[in-house]
């Protein structure tokens, strides 16, 4: 028996490990258990990791009906659920030497006199299945037979663990394939959620994604009861466990989330009483969190059963989050490219239209010029009404040209021809040009002598500054003061990474003593077509913003309403290498 047995176990182990034939290995191990211990029947009951239910995976021996093989046992109470449950609960072998007198034994076949139940452990020491072997003889399972069966239980454990790893490996590979093949973001997230649910044996899985403003996590898709709240459920960054994952970028794994101080339970997949194990991982790309992927299991499993998530589960969810983040970013980049191409087409169309309208306007100007010439040869009394009409026509053409000018400035705001410039000089020149026409307004200039140079399109930046100055003056019809100042600032990167180089910025502040910008319109003033004046298209400040941003800078209005407007422009200074 010894040689046969060792050969058989060796063959089973290699099939389990090398060929991943878990179902065949388990059935063969059950047959071997019958042969080497002269038993009547054997079966393996697996534990569903999500619910704790015991489920017959395979059975060998006499009189098994198809129903028996499909049966599921709910192991609620350790004393009423048989010795299979006893082994599962205690993680220890249980031998019922005489089933007629055993306190835990629940009879199914009447010919059984003794039975052994052996726990099959997984790689983390948790019971994943129980091997049961039955005999028609009482006290049949002596230590030697139990040892033989224990070895076979280990073989079954190896087959099950290998099967789990293979499934997970395939699922992760599948996620990679799905990510590459998904044509839409919805298709992608649906597939990933399905795979997470099956790989991590959880009943609920939700994906929250950052909104565009990066202030909230909004439920994007879900498996389980939260499906109805897609698009509605939202956490602030840092709020609750889900918000904490987004703010820290770290996964959270808890056996009982209700005990955690961060838990809010605002949007749970189940009621607080039913809430069991919780696991959430960031969806990220490089160092940027794009969302949170979270899974949970219910509490209403048998009390002995630990429905917790393992460290391996956490690693899998984190890896899935990283893969999903990378795929989402690819989709975002694709969308952005489409948007840019479309915007570029609109830009081109607009530029051509402006050109054509400009040409036609030019021709009409020529015709008006001719009419004016002919008018001069008419008697004075006939001239007058026609002169008024041609003057009106001429003025309308000029306003049309104003609009064309503004529109063209808007279209070309980002087309820069940069060179090394001094912001102080640009500000001073723009102020000189503007204040030649507006002597009722006082000008104060305070320029930093240490201001580093910037890379800029001098004429565009000067026109943008001129627009701000004209704006300031136009809001002070009774005179006032405009002050211009510059400073140099050091700005560290926001990531807190101190090893990154420090970037120097130059800041210009243009402030006036007018009424300032009311709080309610501060957000809107830089939007295209926003204007509080009747003339022009309202593109002025949006053009200024476009020019500043094309220089990789920022512009804000930081004045206090009622105390004058204050525009702050921040532009990157040239680095020493650039200057050289």
């Amino acid at each position, binding site marked *: 028996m010894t040689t046969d047995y060792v050969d058989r176990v060796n063959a089973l182990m290699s099939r389990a490990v090398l060929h991943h034939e878990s179902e065949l290995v388990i059935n063969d191990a059950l047959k071997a258990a019958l042969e080497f211990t002269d038993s009547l029947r054997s079966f393996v009951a697996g534990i569903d990791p999500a619910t704790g239910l015991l489920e017959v995976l395979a059975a060998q021996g006499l009189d098994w009906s198809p129903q028996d093989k499909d049966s599921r046992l709910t192991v609620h109470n350790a004393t009423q659920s048989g010795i299979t449950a006893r082994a599962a609960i205690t993680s220890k072998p249980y031998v019922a030497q005489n089933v007629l007198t055993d306190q835990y034994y629940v009879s199914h076949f009447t010919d059984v006199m003794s039975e052994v139940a052996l726990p099959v452990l997984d790689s983390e020491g948790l019971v994943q299945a129980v091997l049961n072997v039955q005999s028609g003889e009482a006290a049949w399972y002596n230590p030697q037979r139990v040892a033989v069966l224990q070895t076979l239980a280990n073989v079954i454990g190896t087959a099950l663990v290998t099967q789990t790893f293979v499934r997970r490996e395939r699922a992760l590979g599948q996620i990679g394939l799905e990510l590459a093949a998904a044509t839409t973001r919805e298709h992608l997230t649906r597939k990933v959620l399905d795979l997470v649910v099956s790989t991590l044996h959880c009943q609920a899985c939700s994906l929250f994604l950052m909104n565009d403003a990066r202030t909230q996590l909004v439920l994007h898709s879900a498996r389980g009861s939260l499906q109805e709240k897609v698009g509605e459920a939202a956490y602030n960054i840092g709020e609750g466990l889900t918000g904490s994952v987004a703010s820290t970028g770290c996964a959270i794994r808890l056996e009982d989330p209700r005990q955690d101080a961060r838990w809010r339970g605002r949007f749970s997949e189940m009621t607080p009483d039913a809430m069991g194990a919780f696991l959430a991982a960031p969806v990220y790309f490089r160092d940027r969190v794009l969302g949170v992927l979270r899974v949970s299991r219910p509490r209403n499993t048998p009390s002995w059963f630990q429905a917790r998530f393992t460290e391996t589960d956490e690693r899998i969810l984190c890896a899935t989050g990283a893969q999903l983040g990378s795929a989402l970013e690819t989709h975002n980049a694709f969308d952005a490219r489409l948007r840019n191409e479309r915007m570029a087409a609109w830009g081109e169309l607009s530029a051509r239209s402006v050109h054509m309208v400009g040409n036609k*306007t030019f021709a009409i*100007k*020529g*015709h008006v*010029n*001719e009419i004016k010439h002919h008018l001069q040869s008419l008697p004075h009394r006939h001239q007058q009404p026609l002169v008024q009409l041609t003057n009106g026509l*001429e003025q309308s053409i000029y306003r049309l040209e104003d609009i064309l000018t503004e529109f*063209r400035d808007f279209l070309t705001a980002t087309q820069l021809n940069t060179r090394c410039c001094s912001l102080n000089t640009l500000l001073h020149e723009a102020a000189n040009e503007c204040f030649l026409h507006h002597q009722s307004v006082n000008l104060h200039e305070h320029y930093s002598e240490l201001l580093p140079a910037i890379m800029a399109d001098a004429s565009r930046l000067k026109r943008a500054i001129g627009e701000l100055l004209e704006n300031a003056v136009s809001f002070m019809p009774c005179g006032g003061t405009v002050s211009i100042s510059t400073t140099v600032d050091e700005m560290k990167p926001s990531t807190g990474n101190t090893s990154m180089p420090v970037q120097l910025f130059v800041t210009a502040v243009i402030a006036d003593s007018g009424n300032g910008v009311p709080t309610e319109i501060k957000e809107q003033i830089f939007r295209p077509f926003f204007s509080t004046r009747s003339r022009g298209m309202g593109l002025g400040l949006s053009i200024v913003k476009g020019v500043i941003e094309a220089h990789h800078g920022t512009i804000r209005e930081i004045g206090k309403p009622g105390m004058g407007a204050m525009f702050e422009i921040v532009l990157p200074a040239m680095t020493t290498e650039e200057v050289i």
Partner: protein
Amino acid sequence: MARVLVVDDEPDVQDALKRRLERADHSVHCASSTEDALTMLVAGGPAFDVIITDMSMESENSGVEILQAALHRDSLSAVIILTAYGNVRNAVTCMQMGAYDYVEKNIPDVDVFELITLKANRAAQQVRERRSGSGPTFRLGSAA
């Protein structure tokens, strides 16, 4: 009176410029494309004194091609470039290549046809002086 060539692909613009310049006693010929203009520039007879051409017609740089052909035919000719607003960079390139001047077509509050006529008259005067040997013999660009 000067021999003037107007090049523009917009018939209305051609008509308007022709009428205004004829009123200033110039003899005005028109071309509707770069190809037409190049043919007229190399044709027999006296060279044009002043060439007024749109900068962008078939291409963004049609005006440059016409400028080069005109100066190749007679380096004493004066070429005035008409540009759309905001295309000053092209116009500056033309000035560097020997154009007499440039005019933006859509300047608000300015009667550009009067401006063009003024520049054409000055250019014609200078070309006449140079050809007769009384003016400067070589001139590149003008900030007039």
